[in-house]
C-alpha cells in the first residue's frame, strides 16, 4: 500500500501540471474562436469553451498541485460558483443583445479560402 501512495504522489504533480497546460490551451482556443467568429452570438459560444472546459481542467490541475485539502475545498467552491454564475452572465448578455434588437447571423457561414487565412499556422 505505501508503494501505491508513492506512485500516486509522484504522478500527481505531473498530471496536475499537464491538466493546467491543457486548460490554458483550451482558453487560447476559445480566444481564437472569439476573434474569428462572425457576430456577437457566435462569439458567445466560443467564450463558453473558456468558461467550462478550460476552467474545469485548470481547476482540477490546480487541485492536484494543491498542498492541503483546504485549498482543494476552495478550488471546488470556485468551480461551483463559476458554473452557477457563468451561464447567468452569458444569458444576461445574450438576452440584452436580443432585447436591444441585435439580429444574429443565421445560416451556413463559410469562408472557403483557408489558404489566405492570415492566422493559418
Amino acid at each position: 500500500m505505501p508503494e501505491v501512495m508513492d506512485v500516486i504522489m509522484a504522478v500527481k504533480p505531473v498530471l496536475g501540471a499537464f491538466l493546467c497546460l491543457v486548460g490554458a490551451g483550451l482558453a487560447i482556443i476559445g480566444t481564437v474562436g472569439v476573434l474569428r467568429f462572425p457576430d456577437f452570438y457566435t462569439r458567445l459560444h466560443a467564450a463558453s469553451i473558456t468558461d467550462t472546459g478550460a476552467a474545469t481542467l485548470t481547476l482540477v490541475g490546480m487541485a492536484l498541485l494543491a498542498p492541503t485539502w483546504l485549498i482543494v475545498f476552495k478550488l471546488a467552491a470556485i468551480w461551483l460558483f463559476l458554473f452557477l454564475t457563468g451561464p447567468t452572465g452569458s444569458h444576461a448578455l445574450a438576452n440584452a443583445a436580443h432585447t436591444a434588437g441585435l439580429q444574429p447571423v443565421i445560416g451556413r457561414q463559410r469562408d472557403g479560402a483557408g489558404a489566405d487565412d492570415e492566422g493559418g499556422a
Partner: protein
Amino acid sequence: MGYLLGLIVVLGALWLGLSGIYEPLLLTLSVISIAISILLAARLETVDREGVPYARTPQLFAYWAWLLVEIFKANWPVIKACVRADLDINPALVKVKTRCESDFAKTIFANSITLTPGTVTVEVEGDKLLVHALFEEEATPDSFAEMDERSARAADGRKSSKGEVTA
C-alpha cells in the same frame, strides 16, 4: 424551519472550509457573520424551497455529474470550429419547448443549455425557450429532450408524464 437549518449548515461548512483558522475569536466572528447573512436572507424572503434547495442535493449533484459529461462532449465540436482553417458554422435560432414547471427547474434547464458550449438560451417565455445554436443540425428538439427531462426530475422530483397537466 428546515430551510433555515439547511442554510445555517451550508454557510457554516463553507465558512469552516474557507477559513482554515479555528481560533475562538474567528469562530465567534463566523457565528456573527452567518447570523447577519441569515438575517439578510430572511429579510429578502429567499429562505424557501427555491432559495435553499439543499433537500434535493443528491439529485442535483447526480444531474450535475451527467451534465458535466454532456458539457465535455459538446466542447469538442466548438473547439474544432474554432481552430479549423476554414470557418464552417451554421448558426440558428431555435425554439425549445420545456416540460419544466417550477421556475427553479426552468432556471436549471436554461442554465444547462447556456453552460453547454454551442448553445445559449436567449430568452425564456412561459414554457418556451429561445436558443441560439452554433450548429443548426445539432440543435434539434430531440437533442434537448433528455436534458429537459433530467433537469425537471432533478429539480421537482416528479415523473415527466405529469408535465402535461398544466400548460
